[in-house]
């Protein structure tokens, strides 16, 4: 009995080993990334297109959440990380030097459920903050009415919806509220999860959308792509210059343009409340993050990773629109490519 199993193993093990090695040869280089779920739909598209035109490269991306991606980068278990939040100083130290490459922008929109109102509503930051602080509780509050002349607003309770899961979307949204409302900054603050003064939490965009959709008087923040694809009503926002701005590709590219002038060298920035007449006030970048020196992986992997990322930042940008992401503006793209050029492999420059 045992000798037969032994014989079987003697044959099977080398065969298996051969299969694994052979598989590797056939597939060429395999690179892996992990992190942001926000970027997952377009990442799938990019991966499929890139693998088609580069049959020797196999890419794997696990959408485990930005925090998980950053942890993977720190532990050096992945080749690249996708994250909606940029890394903190201490995280960057732990990872031993990293480079942030914004890849696409994602605005956040205020969506609401008022079937009796047919005009598009307008909000400003202070009003949104006060609604989320529980200081404005009714739709026909004089401050909302003042911003929306001619709109007949109902005497209805505002059902405030927010994300219940820790998320980069919440990080950007609470960052915006901190910027426009000192009370929000001192009482609540900015984080991926906060202690919400009022409202209900839904898990992910679908959870928030379900909360808004279900109840007349619902209000919540959604990612642009999700709101557009689901045909949810979205509000115009008053920006820093006092203009009413529709969330759109043009207004977010305008916002990028506004921040490019005083961009930090490491590109760690959210596009929150920028100046400029046409700038949409709440959006963030989602980032590709690489270690500054890719020496912890093989040269072939490092080169394949950098090539793939270069492709995303150039050719890949044209696929953003069909999936309702917002591409990098030309000025921003130049800065990002300059950052990518700083990547090294054991001190060597990589070609791409």
């Amino acid at each position, binding site marked *: 009995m045992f000798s037969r199993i032994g014989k079987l193993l003697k044959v099977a093990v080398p065969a298996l080993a051969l299969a694994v090695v052979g598989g590797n040869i056939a597939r060429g280089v395999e690179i892996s990334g992990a992190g942001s779920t926000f970027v997952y739909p377009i990442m799938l598209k990019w991966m499929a297109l890139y693998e088609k035109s580069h049959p020797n490269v196999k890419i794997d991306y696990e959408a*485990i*959440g*930005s*925090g*998980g991606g*950053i*942890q993977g980068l720190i532990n050096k278990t992945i080749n690249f990380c996708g994250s909606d939040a940029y890394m903190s100083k201490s*995280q960057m130290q732990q990872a031993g030097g990293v480079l942030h490459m914004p890849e696409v922008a994602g605005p956040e929109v205020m969506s609401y459920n008022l079937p009796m109102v047919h005009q598009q509503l307008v909000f400003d930051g202070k009003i949104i903050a006060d609604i989320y*602080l*529980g*200081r404005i*509780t009714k739709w026909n509050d004089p401050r909302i009415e003042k911003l929306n002349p001619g709109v007949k607003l109902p005497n209805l*309770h505002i*059902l405030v919806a927010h994300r*219940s*899961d*820790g*998320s980069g979307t919440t990080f950007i949204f609470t960052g915006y509220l901190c910027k426009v409302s000192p009370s929000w900054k001192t*009482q*609540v*603050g*900015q*984080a*991926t*999860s*906060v*202690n*919400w*003064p*009022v*409202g*209900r*939490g*839904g*898990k992910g965009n679908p*959870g928030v959308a*379900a*909360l808004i959709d*279900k*109840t007349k008087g619902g209000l919540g923040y959604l990612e642009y792509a999700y709101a557009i694809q689901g045909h949810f009503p979205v509000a115009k926002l008053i920006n820093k210059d006092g203009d009413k701005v529709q969330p759109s590709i043009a207004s977010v590219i305008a916002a990028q343009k506004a921040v490019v002038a005083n961009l930090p060298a490491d590109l760690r920035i959210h596009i929150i409340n920028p100046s400029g007449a046409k700038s949409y006030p709440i959006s963030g970048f989602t980032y590709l993050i690489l270690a500054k020196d890719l020496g912890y992986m093989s040269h072939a992997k490092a080169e394949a990773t950098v090539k793939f990322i270069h492709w995303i930042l150039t050719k890949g940008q044209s696929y953003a629109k069909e999936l309702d992401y917002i591409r990098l503006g030309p000025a921003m793209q130049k800065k990002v490519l300059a950052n990518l050029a700083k990547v090294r492999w054991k001190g060597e420059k990589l070609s791409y």
Partner: protein
Amino acid sequence: MAGLAISGVLAMFGLLALIFLVLLDGAWMAIGQINWHFFTSSVWDPVKGHDHYGVLAFAYGTAVTTFIALLLAVPVSIGTAVFIVRIAPRWLSGPVSFLVELLAAIPSVVYGLWGAFVMSPWLQNYPETWLYNALHNIHLIKLGYYPGSTPKYPLPEYFPANLVHGGPSGTDYLAGGLILAIMILPIITAITRDVLLQFPDSIEHGAYALGATWWQTTRLAINYCRVGIFGAAMLGMARAIGETMAIIMVIGNTDRISSSLFAGGQTLTGVFVNEFLEADRPIYFSAMMYVALTLLISSLLTTLPARFMLNRIGARHASEE
């Protein structure tokens, strides 16, 4: 064979001990810094610099939803089990048993989606609306909150008021309790059915011989099996405490305590699954581990007595669950 069995048991205990130790190690920092305030505070504020972690509101949410679930599920389960064992003809009892057990096979995330998109709007529009109309003028304690006043942060705004304060919402403790009730029905029913089958024929015949009616005999059977039924309810309770995906879809995910059934809440498992992935600072992560440790201990405390009781009466199928 005996050796295999013993090493299996040892491996199980070892695994449990290992899980316990890993959680304890992870939670150590939070235990040191937060201490017992973890259980007495209802403020959960993971913002960097605030770092205030209290699970009272989540524990309250777990307790309330579990209580509602048991209140709804236990009578229905006993009724179903009595039907299967003592009323239904043989050709019907098999299919009914099967259907109830089928409920247990539905993944909890499916319950969650159904809960969010079907049950919750229905609950809001019908039962909660009726309850609200019936109960909104009845106040439990006339203190603190009065309708019409503006909630002021950070006061616990809706406590104490009445059972339906805030109006029908569909995402609240009641919705959480209802979905849990549906989910724990199969386990309670199946075990109750099995313990009712243990009711000795001799006692039943004796009861009839003394002139007891069918209903009196059934009550006798339920009374005879009460320890087993209690054990079944305890196992249902353990399942309710541990349930996650379904409940976060309908409970509203807010960390406030409220006496209103229509207020949003959160459970211990809910906060874990919502925030664990982004808990990227040491103290935040450690607090999450503390939550996990709390869950492990509380589920042990509910499961062990149930097992003990079921073993004592020797219910045949107890070990299947």
